[in-house]
């Protein structure tokens, strides 16, 4: 169903996501790394569109790019007086880290190859927001409520941690 162009765009986006992720973990400028993370998050949202998860793609952009990333940027800027502070202070064990994560990657690739996933294409699933909404207030209503409790305490706790010191 997807044209060649759509496929080509997918792989371009995939390359962009991986390149940005690479910058996030390797780059020496924290602010640039945060913006690279924006690119990676956008790319992941594009994957969701390809997978027919339209609502999730929207949520990804709104929450990750609009929320989490803004938070991270605030964190970067409020904790570094110097805008482009170099973050490689002290000794960094790059080689053992690279070996360990390389091993993880190799094992995961092996798992992906070894398992018969039984993948099937069910065709265009149509808009996902309706079944998603029904599940959230149906079978998963408890999870939905727990998420609200989690948000409540996270909000309360984050405010507490930052407020108290400025008050005292």
């Amino acid at each position, binding site marked *: 169903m997807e044209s060649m162009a759509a496929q080509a765009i997918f792989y371009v986006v995939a390359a962009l996501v991986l390149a940005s992720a690479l910058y996030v973990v390797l780059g020496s400028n924290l602010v640039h790394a945060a913006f690279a993370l924006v690119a990676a998050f956008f790319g992941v949202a594009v994957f969701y569109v390809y997978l027919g998860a339209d609502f999730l793609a929207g949520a990804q952009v709104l929450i990750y790019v609009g929320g989490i990333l803004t938070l991270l940027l605030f964190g970067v800027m409020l904790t570094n007086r110097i805008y482009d502070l170099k973050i490689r202070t002290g000794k960094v064990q790059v080689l053992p880290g690279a070996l360990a994560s390389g091993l993880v990657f190799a*094992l995961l690739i*092996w*798992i992906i190859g*070894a*398992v*018969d*996933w*039984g993948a099937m294409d069910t065709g265009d699933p149509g808009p996902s927001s309706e079944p998603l909404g029904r599940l959230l207030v*149906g*079978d*998963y*209503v*408890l*999870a939905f409520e*727990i*998420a609200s*409790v*989690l948000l*409540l*305490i*996270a909000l*309360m*706790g984050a405010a*507490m*941690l930052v407020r*108290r*010191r400025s008050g*005292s």
Partner: protein
Amino acid sequence: MSDAALSLTRFIPELALVGTLAVVIVADLLTQRWETLRANSLLTWIAGGGLLVALFTSLGPPGGGALFASMIADDGLLAVLRPVFALTALFVLLFSLRARELESVRMGEMVALIVTTAAALMWMAGSVNLVMIYLSLETVSVASYLMVGYLSSERLSNEASLKYILFGAVSTGAMLFGLSLLYGMTGTLDLYGVREALASGAHGPELLLVLVLIAGGIGFKIAAVPFHFWCPDVYTGAPTPVTAFLSVGPKAAGFAVLIRFFYSGLATPEGGSFLPIPGSEAQTLLIVLSVVTMTLGNVAALLQTNLKRLLAYSSIGHAGTMLMGAAALSSEAVHAIGVYLVVYLFMNLGAFFVVILAHRVTGSFDLASYAGFWKRSPVLTIAMVVFLLSLLGMPPFMGFAAKYYVFIAVIQADLVWLAVVGGLNVAVAAAYYLKVVMTMVIEPGEASPPAFAFSRLDAVLLALLAIPNLVGLLFWNALDGFTRVSRQLLDLV
């Protein structure tokens, strides 16, 4: 009635706690202008009432079905653990009134966090759906990070919290990745559905690798080696009542999740035992984890000079002992873990309470500051000796029952060599528990140390914790009976 409405009638303890949370938050706002001590005691009363309601409504016979469209198992294991969580939270709540670190601090958020954690622990222990397991585990985690970092003007507390959240997010991230692969392999998020799908196919080592990723998240919660790095630092940096909470509550819930995974999701019940899905190597994994965890925990505890750190490593050792029980993969093992967790509540919280009371006077957690303790407060010394010997598993204290059940379960599963390793570990544990006892009783302390003063609350709490340890073995049948229902996992009811 609809399924959700019916489920709510079996969900009273959790509802009571969430209701209490709402009341606490509003009450905290309304008392902003009150003086700290008065506001703290009001909030403690409210939360204490809520926890008592949760405690009493959670006692009683287990239900026998799944709640909320198979999200929560209302079974024997949950019936045993719900009161454990409520009681632990209640003790911790009262501890925080007495802890020196928290004395002059407004407790509104802390009280709210304790109540939330108690509820989230209950959700965690009952979860039989991958989404619920992950979500409730993260709720417990986020609340724990906040409690550990509660003293935001204390450097140690902040550092501990930062370490905790970074380690925690990585471990649960690995677990999440493992869960996603498990979902892909089975096409379902329901734990029993996972078992069905796995049992119908053949699996190689890839299943073990997925299991290792998932074990990362569980191991983080129960502080099993090698996911324990955070444990000593967090236990040392956190306010002591929070340390006590973390060493009992999340550990118990982590074991519940472990049982759900290894006994329900990845094994099929057969008579009194559970046969792991071929290819998962679940038993080997548990045995390795348990041997490494107990040995490292106990040996490292030997080297500690700070009592909070020592108790942190000792709690790692206890996690290893419980893992040893879990490796037996039998109904006896579930029962043994149930007994262990109930007993562990009293002995470990007791030891931490003595540490809290000593810290009020000495302002130190160093083992050296406990020298001459006997002369300063014979009552506290005797209480501490009881808790430590109980932790060691020495009769006639209640800790013996915990060790007894675990070792019997291990031997019945034909893992005699594992029981021997466990026995050697008890010997190592004896060395450091007795070291503490010796310091308190024999070593001379300062010439004229400050005296201890007890409030009535201290005496009541101390008695509530010490008496079960002292006379627990006389009520063997009651303990056995109360925890026996834990064998009735959801699919065995």
